[in-house]
């Protein structure tokens, strides 16, 4: 058990009602889940492909579905309701259930670390989050996967692509954080 200085694990006997679990327990859980998914439906974990299919749906609202089905990308990754759609919706439901039971659900516009650096403006944070969202999904599709598909499912199969993703994403993220959170008055 981690000697946690973070949110203390409360004593509630129902694990779902605790605020958080040890990162090792939760991590092992994700590992076991990926084994189960492999065994039962013969699929890796994944999220970003489904989100890019949802963007096909969103596009169809404006352009009609024909333009979407003729698109070079969406003709390969057809936007259609299926396993991955249910998986995404259920992930949402599971996280909400967990947050509600654990008592951590709260509406958040500006998170603490962002506020410390960029101030309390919600507009600023929303612009940052939106741009970040654009970049991360474009990057995920270009790389062929995200933290789930490459970072967990890929690496645990010893796929070269997964480990390259892990290393490059990690280094790029550290460099970005260094730039973004550099204190202008006290650079170090």
């Amino acid at each position, binding site marked *: 058990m981690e000697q946690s200085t973070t949110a203390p694990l409360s004593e509630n006997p129902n694990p779902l009602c605790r605020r958080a679990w040890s990162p090792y327990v939760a991590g092992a859980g994700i590992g076991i889940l990926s084994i189960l998914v492999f065994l039962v439906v013969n699929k890796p974990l994944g999220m970003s492909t489904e989100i890019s299919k949802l963007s096909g749906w969103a596009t169809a609202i404006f352009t009609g579905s024909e333009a979407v089905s003729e698109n070079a*990308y969406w003709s390969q990754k057809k936007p259609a309701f299926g396993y991955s759609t*249910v998986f995404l919706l259920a992930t949402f439901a599971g996280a909400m259930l967990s947050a509600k039971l654990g008592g951590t659900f709260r509406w958040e516009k500006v998170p603490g670390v962002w506020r410390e650096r960029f101030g309390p403006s919600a507009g600023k944070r929303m612009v940052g989050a939106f741009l970040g969202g654009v970049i991360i999904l474009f990057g995920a599709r270009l790389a062929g996967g995200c933290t789930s598909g490459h970072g967990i499912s890929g690496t645990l199969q*010893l796929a070269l692509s997964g480990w390259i993703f892990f290393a490059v994403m990690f280094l790029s993220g550290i460099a970005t954080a260094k730039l973004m959170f550099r204190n202008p008055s006290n650079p170090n």
Partner: protein
Amino acid sequence: MNLPIPTSSIGGLLCAAVFGLIFGVLLQKARVAEYDVIVNFFRLRDMTVLKVMLTAIVVGGIGVALMMTAGWLEGYHIKGTKLLGLVLGSALFGVGMVLYGYCPGTGVAAIATGSLHALVGFAGMLVGGIAYAFSYSWIDANILGVGDYGKVRLTELTGIPEFAWWALLALGAAACFTWLERSARSVGSTGHQG
């Protein structure tokens, strides 16, 4: 019951619901659906993300390798290594992850815990997906073919056998965790914060 269950069947969709629910609970309880935890990892101030991911990789990897040996799995699901696209995409992903504060999966989980900026970022992800789809023809012709090494596993690349990789990774992770916990204890209450 015959495994694997076809994902397009009702049973498959039911599995998606169960697996997704568990995934959502795990992401939330691991605290990786929190902006501060993700961003402080990249600022090297909170190693929660590393602990969660390394544990998942070692536990899941050993499990899959064992089931593969036992013949319970049909085969691996390896993504190809299209080097240029992979490196550029992963680099963008790192930038996006720090700016957004989540990855695609944890972003979905974060919206469910009340993070409104995660929802705005989700709209951004949809736009990112649209941008990718409309530039796909060009990217496919000019980027995805550069350095295409196919589906390569580390075992084939290095000649180091499966079990040695897992022994190495498990020991490496254990050493890393021991060191992290020890330094966390000696530093006391500094380091990460909720």
